C-alpha cells in the first residue's frame, strides 16, 4: 500500500466509522481524484504523487467518487473487512495497473546486426486457452511490413552476421 485513508467520520449515533481504506500502488501511485470510504461512503479528495499523499484527504460531501478502494478493514472492530470486488464498496481486483503504468516503450524492429526482433507491442491476441502461447511466431505472417523491410535490408546488404 502506498497510503491509507483512515475514515473517522461521525456516524451520528456516537460512533465513528473507524475504517481503514487501503490505497494500492497499482492505482494510486500518482493519482488525483475522489475516493469513497468503503464503509460509510464518505467521499475524500486526495492528490498522491509518487506514492506520497501530496494533498488531502479532504472530505467532499455531496460529490461522487471517481474510484473505490481495493480493500478496507476495521482494526478496532476485530478486523472486520471488505474484500476486493464488493459492489459499491470496493473495486474488483483485476490485477491490472492503470493504463499509464502499462508502458509506452520505443519499439525496436531490428537488432544491431539488422535482423528482425519480435516481441514489440501491441501483440496479437493469444493463440490459446488461459493465456497460452505458441512456440513460434512467424514474423512474415505476424507483421508482413517488417518482413518486407527486412527483405529490403537484405537486398541493400545491411544484414550482417555480427
Amino acid at each position, binding site marked *: 500500500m502506498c497510503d491509507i485513508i483512515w475514515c473517522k467520520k461521525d456516524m451520528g449515533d456516537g460512533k465513528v466509522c473507524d475504517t481503514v481504506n487501503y490505497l494500492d500502488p497499482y492505482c494510486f501511485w500518482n493519482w488525483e481524484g475522489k475516493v469513497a470510504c468503503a464503509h460509510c461512503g464518505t467521499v475524500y479528495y486526495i492528490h498522491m504523487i509518487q506514492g506520497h499523499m501530496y494533498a488531502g484527504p479532504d472530505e467532499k460531501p455531496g460529490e461522487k467518487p471517481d474510484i473505490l478502494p481495493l480493500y478496507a478493514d476495521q482494526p478496532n472492530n476485530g478486523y472486520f473487512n471488505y474484500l476486493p470486488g464488493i459492489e459499491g464498496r470496493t473495486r474488483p*481486483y*483485476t*490485477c*491490472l495497473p492503470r*493504463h499509464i503504468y*502499462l*508502458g*509506452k*516503450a*520505443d*519499439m*525496436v524492429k*531490428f*537488432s*544491431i*546486426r539488422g*535482423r*528482425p*526482433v*519480435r*516481441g*514489440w*507491442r*501491441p*501483440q496479437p*491476441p*493469444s493463440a*490459446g*486457452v*488461459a*493465456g*497460452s*502461447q505458441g*512456440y*513460434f*511466431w512467424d*514474423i512474415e505472417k505476424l507483421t508482413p511490413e517488417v518482413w518486407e523491410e527486412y527483405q529490403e535490408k537484405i537486398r541493400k546488404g545491411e544484414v550482417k*552476421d*555480427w
Partner: protein
Amino acid sequence: MDWEKEIQKLKVCDFEELPGPKSKEELEEMKMPFEDYCRRVFDVGNEFVKPEALKGVRWMSTTMYIFTPHSVANLAELGAEVIKIEMPRMGDPMRHTSPFNEAYLYPLHDTRPMTGTGLGFTNANSNEYFITLDYHVPEAKPVFYNLVKMSDGLTECYRHGTFDRWKQGYRHVMEINPRFIYVWGGGFGYGPKIFGGSYDILGQAHAGLASITGTHEDFGGHATKATNWVIDWYSGTQISVAIMAAMYWRGKTGLGTMIEFSQVQAATRCCGYAVPLYGRFGIVRQRWGNWDTQLCVHGIIMTGKSDFPDAQNPQDRFEARYVMVSAFQDADFQELCNIIKKPDLFSRYKTHKDRVGAPAQIEIYKAIEDWAADKTRSEVVRILKEAGLLAAPVMNDREVYECEHYRQRGTVRWNDDPLFGDILVQSAYSCGLLSKTPRRHRWLWRPVGADNVKIYHELLGYPMSKIQELYDKNII
C-alpha cells in the same frame, strides 16, 4: 639405480600397450593437436545434436528476481524440464525490472498486451515453461500437490516459513513425494534475522563482501558493491550445486532432501581468507581496490588516454583507458621497472616480500601510472606484452561482443529466439563447456502463463473446461 626400470614399476598405465584406435576417426582424433581436438569435441554451434545431462528431471520453480531463478535456469540449460510458476497475470516482479523501456519484449501476458518483460529477466529463466498459479489459495492446493507428485523438486524464495504456513513446505510435500528435493532460498535463512528478505546488495553488505570491495577511504574510496548482481548469480549457482548433490544422494538412498540456502550466508564464502585471518590474528581485512594484497605488481592501472577519444559513447570515450598488469615475479618486475624507466624501484624492492607491503605498492603503482599518463590503453598493453609481461585491456560490453576469442568459443552469440527474434545472448554458453552433454539456450523466456495448456492439460490431464474455469477465477 636404473631409473627407467623404476619408472616402469610406477606406471599405472602404459600408453604403448593400450589397444590402438578403434576407427579411422579415433585415429585422427588421437593425432590431432590439442587445439583442434578441443574445437572438435566441443563443436561450438552444434550443441543441439548432443544429449542433455539432466533430461528427465522435472523441477518446479516458484521463484522471483535473480538469485533463486538462476539456480533453476542452470538445470534448464542442462536439459531439465523446468516449470516456472508465476502469479496470475502479474508474473515474476523481475519481468518489470528493466534498464530501459526499449528493452521490453511484449506481451507480458495475454491480458496485458501493452506491457512487456524487461531484459533484466535474461539468463535467470532460460528454456523454462511458464505457467500461472496462485498457489496459496485453498482451491489451488490440489493443483500444486499434483505437480509435486510429478516433479523431482522445487525451488522457492519466500520468507521464513511462508510455504510451511501455506501447507506446501518440505514437511508437507515430503509426505506426498518422499523423493522430493525442496529448496528454500531465503534471504537470511533461519536464525535471529528470520524476517529479513534479501537482495544482492544486501547479501554483499551483510556478508562483509562490500566492506572489502573497492578502494580504501585513504584513497578516496568507499565500501562498494559490484555493479551487477554478482551475489545473486553466484549464490544461485551454489544452489544448483546443492541440487546436484541432493540428486546424487537420492540416487543412492531414494530419499529427498531439504536445501536451505541463505543468500547472505553464501556471500561470506567469497570473502576468502578474511574470516580465518581474523580468527588467527584478530585482523579485520581492509579494502585494497584494484591492487592485490598477495601479489605485486598484479592490479589494474589507469592510463592517460582513451583508446577511442572520438567515440560518442562515454564508456568508450572516457573509460577505455584501464589496463590489467601482472609482473610479480622478480624477473618480470625488473623488466617492468626498466620499461617505465625506474630501475631504482627494482633495486629497492628486489624481493616480492619487499614490494607486496602497502607503502611499496603505493609507490610502485604510482610510478607505473605516471609512466602511462601520456599513453593510450592499447599502447600500454602493446608495450608490456612485447616485453613478455601479462597485460590486458579492461574491456566493456561492446568489446566483449567484438572479441574474437569469445566469438570462436561461442561465449556470446546470436540466437533466433522462437518468440522474440534476433537476440544476443551469453546465458548457457557463458558457463563451462561439456563435450558430451553441453548446455544450450533454447529460448530467452516466454510470456506469463504461456504454457498453461501444455502443463495443465498435457501433463496433468486437466480438461480444457477446467483450465478455463481456473483461469476465469484468477487461480491460474
